[in-house]
């Protein structure tokens, strides 16, 4: 790729290229960049080492500004007036507006509050016994086999089952739900150029939610769909469209994210037996380790729309441009995290941005932390020693969320279910 300093915007009257100007990386796309795909966390660190930010001309009709530093990313997420969430796609717009993700304050709060209550720390905590039971059941199914693809057999299943239970979706359809989410989240502009496959998968997901909503009207249960059905916005019930859109976002948000952090984390644990032994023997260290796994493997890259011409992070931005915020880059920023490339389960302070910042801070963060802690606790109680069978086939993908394509593990089969 070309780093073209001279192509950066020049101020009026400035006849000479400013050597400190933001570099252009021609047609840069974080979903397909070979350096990121070869190791995304190190890849962002390499990019950050070259410049504070860079521009991509991939979108054509507007500039994309990649901000790489912790402070810039956090400030951008907090400044919702300058950086609007009206689209969180870096190319084009969502087929239908994601609620509440693609709203700004003050309208954002009206929808956001519908999610805050069922995902609040106390609400999540009371579900711990069911969540732990789901986890143990899944691990026991796997344990006697002595091997698994951790991603497909556990990391995708566990948060999916928990989430479908929370949402009142039919748990027996878990595999279908996972597959449809994969299409929506992982097809790219190259594999699905006219959005046909992603659009179709999205419609199927909305159909699932609609069917569950109908079933709830007939037979109400205590879950998020029920709360959405009985909620009010501006003194009126949610429209069907609003309910489906909220459900769609929750669906995607809850499925891939925890699965990917789990897979990266267990991939790391599989190759670091000392850390694994420490966490197995001292489970009180697990909450701190969860924070460090969240930092070390911050997977989300989000986007905002620039609302007015402004200089930010040294970038001459124009209204309509978009900024790309890779939390993976913030997570390894040495100005915030000393020896950022070192994994320390007791790292303090650890104010990572895995869950973002500002009004759109991930509402599922408390549930995510609980799931990660329970997975680390229960897996090592049953399967304390494991290794990667063969890493040759493992690939990484990058996009709105980063992840691995597989994690084949094996362990001594002397662990009876």
């Amino acid at each position, binding site marked *: 790729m070309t780093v073209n300093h001279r192509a950066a915007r020049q101020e009026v009257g400035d006849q000479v290229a400013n050597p400190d100007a933001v570099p252009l990386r021609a047609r840069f796309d974080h979903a397909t960049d070979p350096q990121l795909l070869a190791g995304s966390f190190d890849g962002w660190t390499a990019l950050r080492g070259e410049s504070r930010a860079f521009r991509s001309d991939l979108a054509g009709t507007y500039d994309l500004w990649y901000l790489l530093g912790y402070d810039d990313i956090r400030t951008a997420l907090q400044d919702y007036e300058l950086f609007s969430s009206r689209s969180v796609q870096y190319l084009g717009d969502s087929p239908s507006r994601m609620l509440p993700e693609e709203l700004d304050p003050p309208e954002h709060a009206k929808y956001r509050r519908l999610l805050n*209550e069922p995902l609040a720390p106390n609400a999540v905590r009371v579900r711990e016994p069911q969540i732990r039971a789901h986890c143990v059941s899944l691990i026991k199914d796997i344990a006697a086999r002595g091997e698994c693809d951790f991603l497909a057999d556990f990391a995708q299943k566990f948060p999916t089952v928990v989430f479908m239970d929370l949402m009142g979706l039919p748990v027996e359809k878990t595999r279908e739900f996972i597959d449809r989410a994969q299409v929506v989240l992982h097809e790219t502009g190259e594999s699905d150029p006219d959005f046909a496959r992603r659009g179709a998968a999205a419609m199927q997901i909305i159909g699932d939610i609609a069917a569950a909503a109908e079933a709830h009207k007939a037979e109400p249960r205590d879950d998020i769909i029920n709360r959405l059905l009985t909620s009010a916005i501006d003194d009126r019930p949610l429209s069907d469209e609003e309910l489906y859109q909220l459900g769609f976002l929750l669906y995607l948000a809850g499925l891939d994210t925890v699965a990917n952090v789990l897979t990266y984390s267990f991939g790391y644990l599989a190759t670091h037996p000392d850390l694994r032994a420490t966490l197995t023997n001292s489970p009180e260290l697990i909450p701190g380790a969860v924070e460090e796994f969240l930092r070390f493997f911050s997977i989300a890259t989000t986007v905002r729309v620039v609302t007015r011409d402004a200089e930010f992070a040294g970038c001459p931005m124009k209204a309509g441009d978009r900024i790309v915020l890779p939390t993976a880059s913030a997570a390894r920023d040495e100005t915030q995290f000393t020896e950022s490339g070192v994994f320390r389960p007791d790292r303090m302070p650890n104010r990572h941005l895995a869950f973002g*910042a500002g009004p759109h801070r991930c509402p599922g963060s*408390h549930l995510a932390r609980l799931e990660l802690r329970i997975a680390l606790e229960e897996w090592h109680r049953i399967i304390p020693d494991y290794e990667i069978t063969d890493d040759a086939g493992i690939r990484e993908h990058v996009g709105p969320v980063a992840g691995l394509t597989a994690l084949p593990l094996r362990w001594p089969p002397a662990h009876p279910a």
Partner: protein
Amino acid sequence: MRVYVDEHVCAGHARCNAVAGELFELDDIGFALPIDREIAPAKAGAAQMAANACPEGAITVEENL
């Protein structure tokens, strides 16, 4: 020592409560209760750890003037 939680900056990460639950309580949806009060110097360490844990920078711990 004065501890101040800015409710306009708090985004509900709940890290303050995780680190120093006796000093930082949460409301029903996990946002820090807005406080602006004195604490004993002995608690300053815990308060500062909580301030350092907040990704938003919503907590200030300072000496009284």
